[in-house]
């Protein structure tokens, strides 16, 4: 081949190969080129060169000064089978935090969990969530969690601490030293087996359970009444008459998610079903549940025993039971009426009490038993596995530890130093304990006293199972690889037990299920398929072994003496009631800024802990509120004094003070630390139980100083404005489905064309008949929403769900004080006033024991939106599907739209809330880990733009696309907003009003006529109908099941 190569020559010079050519042949250019840098030119840069150099240097220097943002977007080299960029994956899992439970579905995007919703297959939580569950996703990305094990306050290695812990445990065990494992109630059967393995390995070890909020009174009562140490299952969906003595079952008591769902079912009325449950609430503070009651009677805790006893006696007299020999508390409002209602609804009623006093719980059991509610609204056979902590064992443990008889303690996700009444004693006792281990995810109050911290995974990183109710199992599966170098606590226990087989909890869990549950079903005969199916569903139900409760055994003499001993009907002193807030709960999630900034459903205060007092006490003690400045007061509890701001709470019983638990964290993180006081210290010991009441030793001294609490709502009555709140009583509704409706009429000078079937009498027309604007045409979809004021319980789940879904920023206490909260959906809480309609200054004052109405308020998506016309740059427009749209990119921030919004639902970005050290509590936008929670389908808004509810347009678009791929129109099940999805009471219904089969169309009983949809449902109204904005959101009148004759009683 080489021989055949042709030679191409460059020119004749090469061909002739003359010496001059050869000399320069190796150079590209044979002649000298006038290149810069030649010796004589080196220092003679021209002016142009200088300018070029200058220009370049300046540009280079300024470019170097601009730090290019580091963008970490790493493409998949090998795409995981299940992960498609932009397409969410959903996994069924289980929420378990601080002893609480919820069966959930986790939405993940590109491997990041970003949203939690309820699992509809669950028979326990019925596909619903609450604010704490919704918000818990942010705790996964809390940057203040531990990144690996800790030894003596220093970062360590798992192998090192494992070796140490095992050695010490063995040594202690050999010496006969005592080992304790402290946890909340264990809901997980597999975890219980792991703990049993541990206890077997170390025979001197004991497992102690306690719960931050004790329900020991209920289990004790059932033990003495029925021989079963359980919390029974309550079924509010069958309880037509509910009497609650201080049980906040819609907010915080036992299983608020399920109870809210069940309770709301009987609160819905319609033309066909004009009946609803009747709810009596006897309580000291104004709870969320009390706010929903038809009859709410303030009762001091000191007389609670007598009030329950009186009801017992009234019913016992009828049922032929032995009555109690207790003091008569005097006239208790509506108690006889409640007894009558209960008696006539035997078997369809329910009496509950939030007290932790076994004596009261026994009376409640007795009442329910007399009413024949067992087996109907109360189920002893399938009790609740939650909150079964044994307080007396915990007390014993603290005593032993104080006495120095305990050598090793392991705290399994429990923080008793913070949330046990004897936390301080425990913290001192722990100094004398040889080995203290905590599995806490952060160095919390208890873990800070531990030598070893072996951080557990977040529940979204863990395998687990849970059995909140016997027979109702659910699986928890990890939805993300562990973010930090943490290890599942069960794995740790298996390692420390030196388990013979695998130390992998996943294998252990599978084995447990294979052995215990696989054979409890007969549908699937292959375990792998059974496992996959259970994992897919998230839940598995089986026939649990039936318990055998005994007949009711109640000893009236013993109970009467306990009540006479513990309660004082004529107590003159102040009484302190400790309660949980709907958002913060027991403080487990205190470091979650979404929950800290969630308005308390009743007081609407955020970011603080405060005392509540009754209106009368406030007046007597000189406690006032002046333009959001609250009186500070010294609260004395025996020898301790605390200074707290005081909120005047209408509806609170005179002589009571309310203080929330869950605050006063010292080591939870930068969000929670230093907010409020730790009220767990003031849980008092009464007789044989922990009591949330402190009946003596309380003093309150108002100071001259004031403190500004951050409130999202500062005006509390609705000024009797019937264009805002439309309500009626049940008997009125039964007579007329349109009862309580306010239908505005407008006088016109001309007889306008008849519209909407309205009669046109002398120019008096409905506001809809007059408009400057042409009607929009909605050829395809017309989205709308119905909000039933009757079933809205005001819990605020929707607010948090929306915040998670739509990347709504947290702005912090100071900005809420400035009234700049950003929530897209808020719940307006209105009190009634006793002033006459025309006494405007009188109407500003709430009644002493007001009726409460909750009104979720969000963008009304007006068809004739006042905001749309005033924007100078068309940044807010109307869609062809009825949505009022906000184009953030186009917004220049004149705020004219917000001013002109009659509903005041628009929210302005006053500052840059993301990546701003001033807003470092906005965890989801201030660090790269927190940002993983952001929904990639929704932009994070920049400073200076307006934002508001979008009806979750990203979900609408997704739903439409999914339906389109299947060649059909989207139906209700395809699209739902985050708020409607989260609502445990089903008070919010979203849907397509153009779809005659949609739920919303049926609820509104839409009549489709000549391109117009006429709402025939009498209860449906628009807020501020007379403004003529024509919202796409309808409210249903609030109906109260209260007899008219009782109104002034």
């Amino acid at each position, binding site marked *: 081949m080489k021989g055949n190569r042709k030679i191409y020559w460059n020119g004749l010079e090469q061909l002739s190969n003359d010496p001059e050519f050869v000399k320069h042949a190796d150079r590209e250019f044979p002649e000298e080129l006038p290149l810069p840098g030649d010796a004589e030119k080196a220092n003679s840069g021209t002016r142009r060169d200088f300018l070029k150099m200058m220009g370049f240097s300046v540009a280079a220097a300024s470019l170097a000064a601009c730090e290019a943002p580091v963008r970490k977007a790493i493409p998949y080299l090998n795409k995981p089978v299940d992960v498609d960029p932009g397409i969410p994956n959903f996994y069924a899992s289980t929420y378990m935090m601080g002893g609480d439970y919820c069966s959930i579905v986790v939405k993940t995007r590109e491997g990041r969990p970003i949203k939690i919703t309820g699992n509809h297959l669950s028979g326990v939580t019925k596909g619903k969530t609450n604010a704490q569950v919704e918000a818990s996703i942010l705790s996964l990305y809390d940057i203040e969690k531990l990144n690996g094990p800790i030894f003596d306050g220093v970062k360590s290695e798992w192998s090192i601490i494992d070796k140490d812990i095992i050695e010490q445990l063995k040594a202690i065990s050999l010496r006969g030293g005592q080992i304790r494992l402290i946890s909340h109630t264990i809901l997980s059967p597999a975890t219980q087996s792991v703990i049993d393995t541990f206890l077997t390995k170390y025979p001197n070890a004991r497992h102690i359970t306690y719960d931050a909020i004790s329900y020991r009174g209920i289990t004790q009562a059932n033990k003495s009444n029925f021989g079963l140490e359980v919390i029974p299952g309550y079924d509010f969906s069958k309880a037509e008459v509910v009497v609650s003595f201080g049980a906040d079952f819609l907010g915080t008591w036992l299983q608020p998610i399920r109870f809210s769902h069940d309770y709301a079912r009987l609160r819905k009325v319609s033309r066909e079903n004009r009946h609803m449950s009747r709810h009596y609430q006897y309580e000291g503070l104004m709870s969320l549940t009390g706010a929903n009651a038809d009859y709410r009677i303030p009762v001091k805790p000191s007389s609670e025993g007598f009030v329950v006893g009186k009801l017992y006696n009234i019913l016992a007299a009828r049922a032929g039971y032995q009555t109690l020999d207790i003091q008569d508390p005097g006239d208790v409002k509506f108690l006889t009426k409640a007894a009558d209602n209960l008696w006539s609804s035997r078997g369809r009623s329910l009496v509950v009490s939030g007290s932790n006093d076994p004596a009261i719980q026994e009376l409640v059991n007795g009442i329910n038993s007399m009413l024949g509610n067992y087996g109907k609204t109360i189920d002893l056979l399938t009790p609740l596995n939650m909150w079964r902590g044994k307080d007396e064992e915990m007390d014993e443990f603290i005593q032993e530890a104080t006495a120095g008889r305990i050598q090793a303690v392991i705290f399994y996700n429990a923080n008793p130093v913070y949330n046990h009444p004897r936390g301080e004693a425990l913290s001192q006792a722990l100094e004398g304990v040889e080995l203290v281990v905590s599995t806490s995810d952060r160095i919390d109050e208890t873990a800070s006293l531990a030598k070893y911290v072996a951080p557990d995974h977040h529940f979204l990183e863990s395998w687990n199972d849970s059995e909140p109710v016997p027979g109702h199992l659910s699986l928890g599966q990890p939805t993300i690889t562990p973010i930090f170098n943490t290890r599942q606590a069960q794995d740790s226990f298996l390692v420390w037990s030196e388990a013979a087989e695998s130390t992998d909890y996943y294998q252990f869990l599978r084995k447990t299920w294979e052995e215990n549950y696989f054979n409890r079903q007969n549908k699937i005969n292959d375990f792998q398929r059974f496992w996959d199916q259970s994992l897919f569903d998230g839940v598995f139900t089986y026939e649990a072994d039936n318990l055998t409760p005994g007949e009711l055994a109640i000893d009236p003499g013993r109970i009467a003496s306990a009540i006479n001993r513990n309660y004082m009907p004529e107590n003159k002193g102040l009484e302190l009631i400790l309660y949980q807030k709907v958002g913060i709960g027991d403080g487990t999630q205190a470091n979650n800024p979404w929950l800290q900034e969630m308005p308390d459903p009743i007081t609407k205060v955020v970011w603080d802990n405060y005392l509540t007092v009754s209106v009368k006490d406030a007046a007597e003690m000189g406690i006032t509120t002046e333009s959001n400045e609250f009186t500070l007061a010294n609260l004395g509890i025996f020898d301790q004094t605390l200074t707290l701001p005081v909120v005047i709470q209408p509806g609170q019983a005179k002589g009571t003070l309310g203080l929330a638990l869950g605050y006063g964290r010292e080591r939870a993180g930068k969000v929670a630390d230093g907010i409020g006081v730790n009220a767990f210290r003031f849980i008092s010991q009464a007789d044989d139980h922990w009591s949330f009441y402190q009946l003596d030793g309380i003093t309150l001294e108002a100071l001259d100083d004031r403190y500004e609490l951050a409130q999202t709502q500062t005006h509390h009555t609705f000024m009797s404005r019937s264009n805002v709140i439309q309500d009626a009583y049940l008997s009125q509704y039964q007579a007329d489905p349109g009862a309580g409706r306010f239908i505005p009429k407008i006088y016109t000078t001309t007889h306008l064309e008849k519209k909407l079937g309205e009669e046109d009498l002398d120019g008096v027309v409905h506001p809809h008949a007059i408009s400057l604007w042409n009607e929009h045409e909605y050829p395809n979809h017309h989205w709308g929403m119905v909000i039933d004021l009757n079933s809205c319980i005001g819990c605020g789940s929707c607010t948090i769900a929306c915040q998670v879904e739509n990347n709504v920023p947290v702005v912090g206490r100071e900005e809420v004080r400035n009234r700049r909260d950003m929530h897209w959906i808020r719940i307006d809480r209105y009190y009634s006033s006793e002033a006459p309609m025309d006494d405007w200054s009188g109407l500003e004052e709430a009644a002493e024991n007001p009726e409460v109405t909750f009104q979720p308020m969000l963008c009304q998506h007006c068809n004739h939106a006042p905001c749309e016309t005033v924007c100078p740059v068309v940044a807010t427009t109307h869609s062809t599907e009825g949505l009022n749209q906000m184009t953030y990119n186009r917004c220049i921030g*004149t705020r004219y739209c917000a001013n002109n919004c009659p509903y005041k639902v628009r929210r302005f970005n006053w500052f840059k809330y993301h990546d701003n050290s001033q807003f470092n509590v906005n965890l989801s936008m201030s660090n790269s880990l927190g940002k993983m929670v952001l929904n990639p389908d929704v932009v994070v808004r920049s400073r200076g733009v307006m934002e508001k509810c979008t009806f979750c347009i990203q979900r609408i678009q997704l739903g439409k696309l999914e339906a389109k791929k299947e060649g059909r129109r989207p139906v209700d099940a395809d699209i739902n907003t985050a708020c409607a999805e989260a609502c445990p009471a089903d008070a919010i219904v979203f849907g397509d009003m153009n779809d005659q089969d949609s739920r919303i169309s049926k609820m509104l009983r839409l009549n489709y006529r000549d391109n117009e949809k006429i709402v025939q449902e009498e209860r449906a109204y628009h807020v501020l109908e007379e403004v003529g904005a024509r919202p796409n959101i309808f409210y249903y009148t609030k109906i109260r099941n209260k007899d008219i004759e009782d109104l002034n009683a």
Partner: protein
Amino acid sequence: MEVISSVRPPLVTGGKTVADVTEDICMQVEAKPSRSWMMGMAISLTALAVGFYALIILLWEGIGMWGLNKTVGWAWDITNFVWWVGIGHAGTLISAILLLFRQKWRMSINRAAEAMTIFAVLCALMFPGFHMGRLWLGFYWALPLPNTFGSLWVNFNSPLLWDVFAISTYFIVSLVFWYIGLIPDFATIRDRATHKISRIIYGALSFGWDGGARTWQRYESVALILAGLATPLVLSVHTIVSFDFATSVIPGWHTTIFPPYFVAGAIFSGFAMVMTLMLVARHVMGLKDYITVYHIEMMNIIIIVTGSIVGIAYLTEYFIAWYSGVPAEQYAFYNRATGPYWWAYWIMMTCNVVSPQLFWFKQIRTSVIASFVLSIVVNIGMWFERFVIIVTSLHRDYLPSSWAMFYPTFYDVGVFLFSLGFFFTCFLLFAKFFPVVNMAEMKSILKATVSDKKTLK
């Protein structure tokens, strides 16, 4: 029958000759700055500097530096805007409408009044700019410019856009009007200038004015045409500004009386501001013979008339609120007078309705001190009028859950201070370097005869 009309007293007193006019007015420009001018300038520049700090922080950190909130989206920003626009009404009214009505007394004040208008409108223009969340985009997105954003265009339904047109037109016409008027006087200064630089500068400013008959004739035609153009603008600008409120749905804003009421209020506050400035100028610059008590009295009469119109408008709003039967409207006005901002309302009522009525008394009307004090009182009242309309209407509107209070911060005050500093700095520079009285026109009304006869046949 012989009709004997009384001879009007001369508008310029002190027996000034044509030469005296030139000398008196040019002296201000040619002399060294006076001590009082320097002090005034120092105060203005201090205000400007403090205000500038507030403004920079506002622009850097965001609108949240102000005390606004989710309920009250506008407060001092738009209050200041409307207040400044209102003040900016007097100049053109004096120059244009009074020119058309041949009110020659205007000649001694129109130059300063027009300058005030220009600066006031500049101050007004600041606020719609600075109040925007995204000024860096808004300043040109709010204009109907061809763009590459697709079919994006401004919203012609929005009163804010109407504002953009109304105020920019008004500003441009006022500026041209003012400048055309200045040209002959610049030429006078040019001709007298001794220093080379001032000769060049005033030469350039006077556009080569030659004082020929033809030039004068054209000058007068242009002045008349511009007066004709400016006249409707005087009425339209504040009408359109009032649409920002009148076309909304908020009780207290949604009122058809706003256009005439706003225009009257604007003239009211504009004259008050002219009064304040002219009384100071008169005293400091020794213009007592040019701005006489007669001028003061005439302006005070206009203040009584417009103040009374405004007062009637306030009362009419109450009547209409009652008569309309709209509860929200009734509450809005009840709340104005008795709610948390009652003090602002009563400051407004006292300053705007009660205080100008004092001018019915001749002694007060012709007293320099009383006029000066009351002119400031009127402008305080007019600022509160806008505050009352904007804040008390917004802070308690339809849904009681959203009711909130507005508390100003340092930055609210600071940016207002910035506009005040800017205004007075500009005005002081004008007073020093430009002829404050229209010399050319002034010369036309000097007393033509030295005769002391009281009547003319």
